């Protein structure tokens, strides 16, 4: 029984960390160009609603996913234009986007709450591998986005470290003035990647409505956009470490089920709060490690700095 529970928990953890992983991968790209978008919670929740509405209205899964991506990108684009072009305060604008996203989605989503989605993300059993007893069930019998989410950080890793465009992206985040001098359009790429980050957040939101509970609830993200921000810090701005952080978050979320199955007499609220407590604990440990070893896991040098060419 215990082993069955273990493999079941692994499967739940992978699915539970997926939305955060997608959103965090997007946020990493944004932070690599030196922008700090704390509004991804807003982009995520609007993406979740748009994806659900898209599927309910058309019955087409693709329309839903595209709607989620578009809603996330559009939301973040507003932030990107305000910050990168007009040079508004990043934190104030990011908070504004979060509030707008939560408020607008709760208003527009009223009629959709608790409906069933007519189409949801299909499960795809990976041939051969999914036939392995236990391990197959835990790792290789998920819906498509779970695999996509796992591969996304690898894509970003190769983009950043093994392409000349990636070098340009990193240059913008490290030293925008130098990048500008090299002829890289700093403002243009900043706006572009903020929108891309929003598209990722929107896709993460779409996973929540179409890949986990198959319905829409107001505030469905429940802070996952903020967790994504914390995971980027936890990963030390390295794409592949995002995977560890996100699945760790997913694993903390499954402990409640484990406790229930094993009959532990710990209040369930403790396990509900555990992902947030765990995120805080991990952030603290990491910062402490960074104090011990300065220079390890450094953030982009120009992170949070607005830039405009001096005329």
């Amino acid at each position: 029984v215990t082993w069955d529970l273990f493999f079941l928990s692994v499967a739940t953890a992978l699915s539970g960390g997926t939305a955060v992983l997608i959103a965090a991968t997007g946020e990493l790209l944004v932070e690599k160009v030196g922008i700090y978008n704390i509004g991804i919670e807003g982009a995520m929740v609007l993406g979740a609603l748009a994806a659900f509405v898209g599927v309910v209205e058309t019955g087409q899964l693709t329309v839903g996913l595209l709607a989620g991506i578009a809603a996330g990108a559009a939301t973040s684009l507003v932030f990107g234009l305000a910050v990168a072009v007009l040079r508004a305060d990043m934190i104030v604008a990011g908070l504004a986007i979060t509030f707008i996203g939560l408020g607008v989605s709760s208003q527009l989503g009223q009629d959709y709450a608790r409906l069933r989605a007519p189409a949801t993300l299909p499960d795809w059993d990976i041939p051969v591998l999914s036939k392995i007893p236990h391990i197959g069930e835990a790792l290789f019998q998920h819906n498509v986005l779970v695999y996509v989410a796992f591969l996304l950080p690898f894509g970003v890793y190769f983009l950043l470290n093994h392409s000349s465009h990636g070098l340009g992206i990193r240059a913008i985040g490290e030293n925008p003035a130098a990048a500008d001098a090299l002829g890289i359009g700093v403002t243009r790429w900043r706006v572009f990647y903020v929108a891309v980050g929003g598209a990722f957040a929107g896709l993460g939101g779409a996973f929540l409505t179409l890949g986990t509970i198959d319905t829409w609830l107001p505030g469905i993200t429940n802070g996952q956009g903020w967790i994504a921000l914390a995971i980027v810090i936890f990963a030390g701005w390295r794409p592949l470490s995002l995977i560890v952080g996100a699945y760790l978050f997913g694993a903390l979320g499954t402990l409640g089920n484990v406790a229930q199955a094993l009959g532990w007499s710990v209040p369930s609220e403790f396990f509900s709060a555990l992902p947030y407590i765990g995120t805080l604990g991990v952030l603290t440990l990491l910062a402490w490690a960074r104090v011990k070893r300065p220079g390890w896991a450094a953030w982009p040098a120009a992170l949070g700095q607005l830039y405009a060419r001096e005329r």
Partner: protein
Amino acid sequence: LNRPADDEAATRALVEPSPRRHRPRQLRWGLERNATAEHVMWYRLVAICIGLALALVLGPLFVDQTSGEIREHVWQQTFGTSLGIGNVLSVATPLILTGLAACVPYRLGVWNIGADGQMLVGAWLAAAIAFEMSDLSGTLLIPLMLAASFIGGALWILGPALARMLLGINEIITTLMLNFVAIYWLIYWAAGPWRDPLVVAGVRSRSLPEDAEISEVTIGSLQVQWGFFLAVGLAFALWLFFRHAKLGYEVSMLRESERVARYAGIPARKRMLQLMLIGGAMGGLAGAVAMGGTIHRYSDALSNNTGYAGVVVAILAAGSELAVVLTAIVFAALIVGGDGLRTAGISADAVFALLGVILLLAALGDVLGRYRLVRRTSGQTPQDGPESNQVAAK
């Protein structure tokens, strides 16, 4: 990039062709960008007005009433009747305090997004005292509850404050994460040990003892809980304190230039800790005042996102504790008006969209405030002031 001005002029003389002799130097209008924003308060007022206008225009799209009916309805519920005014002021009471909770640390550029959690923890300690020491009389019980909530709120921010102070951990994320922890803490107590046996669904504790209720003051036909006057008094006291006390002077010096302040022997990190603790304490107090004044239970209706709204209040008040009071009253009217339209099709969190729009407009107003329309001759070029917009810590 920061070349001396002489150098820059010399370089430009080398690079740019000199204007032709026969063309007179033109006078043109242009924009000049300053290092600091001016007329910030006016731009924020305009932001609030645009937000309200937007609500009037967009409101009818979501409500099955005409805009005239909505205006009438909202007016009746807010400033139109003395009952409405009392309602607005009672909603404004915790909002003023959460506004202060964000405003005070922001004097040093530190964010407190955790007033929601501080409210719940402050109210938890107050409720514990009310339930456990119910044999005390009201004159003693309520001050004790307020003091407990004060301490509870400060304790709830102590972790993020120390983390920021000692390890440089971004306080935005830590204070926010603790909100979620506090919500589950509330659910455990309100649906567990303190559960109201008569309530089947919902997260509500049994009622507080009558002595733990904050009484109302009657002025003419207006009834307001005296917590409102406490909140206004605290705002005024903090404003005076930061204007006239030594600590206030040190804080403004730190804000101007941390390096200069350090040379003057001002302990920067200690001041930051102090301001964060004051902020947390205000958040905790907001919880006790909301519970004792209106809700009378330890329930999930307690915070109602007042902590997040407080952040918006503090930003729009531009760091002035007095402006927090006025802004909080305006926003409380918005919240009450939105609640009044709940049955007509406005969702519980819709007001947040409006607050977000106002906040975004305020951020853009700051940008506008940096620019000044100037006349200049064609030879001059605009120059940028130094940017001071950075994320201070990770």
